[in-house]
């Protein structure tokens, strides 16, 4: 139930994002979702892609500092209050979220949220038990 997310260290200088995304594109890596955490001097680019192992290899080969992190992806109905239910479950179970970001489906009325929590496996269990739909890596990669 865990998804591999790529995290890339990016300095705050012009052209960095352009060269990373170009490199991934040239190697047929398709980006499903992304987010950037930024500070004054650097950022961490977080990516969900169709082929994380290949992306890791390509980025490492180009001397980027990159690592794979396990995250969970949940699917929720794209309507007001949809996310609140999932957050409530986590809160009631004492699970705090390090960060999260969302994207919406191209086909149906579903929104997806990528969550990074302290203990991903435990969080995945709790969410499923409470009827929240978790996405498998295959579902994400083939999306």
């Amino acid at each position: 139930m865990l998804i591999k997310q790529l995290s890339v260290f990016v300095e705050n200088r012009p052209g960095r994002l352009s060269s990373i995304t170009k490199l991934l594109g040239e190697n047929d890596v398709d980006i499903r979702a992304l987010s950037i955490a930024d500070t004054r001097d650097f950022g961490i680019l977080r990516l969900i892609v169709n082929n994380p192992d290949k992306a890791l290899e390509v980025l490492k080969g180009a001397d980027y500092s990159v690592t794979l992190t396990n995250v969970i992806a949940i699917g929720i109905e794209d309507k007001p209050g949809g996310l609140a239910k999932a957050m409530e479950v986590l809160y009631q179970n004492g699970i705090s979220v390090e960060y999260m970001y969302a994207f919406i489906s191209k086909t149906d009325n579903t929104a997806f949220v990528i969550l990074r929590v302290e203990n991903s496996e435990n969080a995945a269990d709790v969410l499923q038990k409470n009827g929240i739909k978790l996405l498998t890596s295959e579902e994400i990669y083939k999306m």
Partner: protein
Amino acid sequence: MPKYWNESIECATPYEMQALQSFRLSQTVRRVYENVPYYRKRMDENGVKPEDIKSVADLSKLPFTVKQDLRDTYPYGLFAVPMSEVVRLHASSGTTGKQIVVGYTENDIEIWKEVIARAITAAGGGKDDFIHVSYGYGLFTGGLGLHYGAEKVGATTIPVSVGNTARQITIMRDFGSTILCSTPSYALYLAETLKEMGVDKSELKLKAGIFGAEPWSEEMRAEIQEKLGIKAYDIYGLSEIMGPGVAFECEDQSGMHISEDHFIPEIIDPDTGEVLPDGVQGELVFTCITKEAFPLIRYRTRDIAVLERGQCRCGRTLVKMLKPRGRTDDMLIIKGVNVFPSQIESVLLSLGNTSPHYQLIVDRVNNNDTLEIQIEISPEMFSDTVKNLEEQENIIKAAVESTLGIAAKIRLVEPKTIARSEGKAVRVIDKRKK
């Protein structure tokens, strides 16, 4: 394999050494007085006659020579033999100013080979070794200096010179190099490239390295030794005096033995010129007592070091110089505090997971000095959360502050973005200089 190249000199008693030095010094002073108008003028101005210099104890009567004197007499003004006797010229890179030129007679080259042979022998090298010389060949003394010394000991000498790192590794593996001679920063660069090429250090036959031409810390030594699986020996020299081989390290790795039968060292207070006792840190000064073409008298090296006398655990009695702590001209004065880049390197490497690739950016903002330390992020340091990275920055910041006593801004940068010269590493960018 012999332990010493020249045991009677390397293990001489203090009395024997002083007698030899005194004899050679008085001869050299007489020769330069007669043959070099510049020295004669300086000695006359100071009221010193060649006959006043009878022993090592008289050395401090002589005036100092500084780099500016070499520039003022450029190119051949300090040569003490006719140019017809000079068989080789070398020139300094001129990184800290106008270039200078130095010359060697046939006999000078023999002395140079001898001192390098001592260094190679002390590093466990001999005729069965394959010595891989990755110093630059050419006007720089590094390449040819080590090269001739390696041939002198009868080793199979591989004159690779600098550059084309992947090819160097192939040569190292295929030719069976056992001793690497390069700058320490290049040795680390080789180690990284090795890893990238997927070559394990066990595929190489390297057992030792002789590294010099730039200051390096004990932590950097430990890293090179670990990554290349070798013992790393320091070597010291400067073109003005001879080139590499003025001093060399033995297996005890506790300072470099100076070939004091050729170069007499002194430590002085850089501000007053006063000679300091052994064990006290100050500026290193050398007097050449056997060189024919370019014998410098009391040359101020601007290197900061300490001298230590007595018999070393290796058996040698040659006086030792403890690793230069930097150069008087490398020293940065930031907010009134003396800072050597090597101190910062030690701090970074002592933290364990930081990379040895750093650069100091010194600037002045609103009349306040600022220090920024850029450090390439290492795989061990990188983690997915901003919180962790900021914590690491804070740890480095605190360690630097407690060592230097001044605040520094830490900036993590992407791997391989700090310029890697294949020769000397650029550690400092001082934007305050006009």
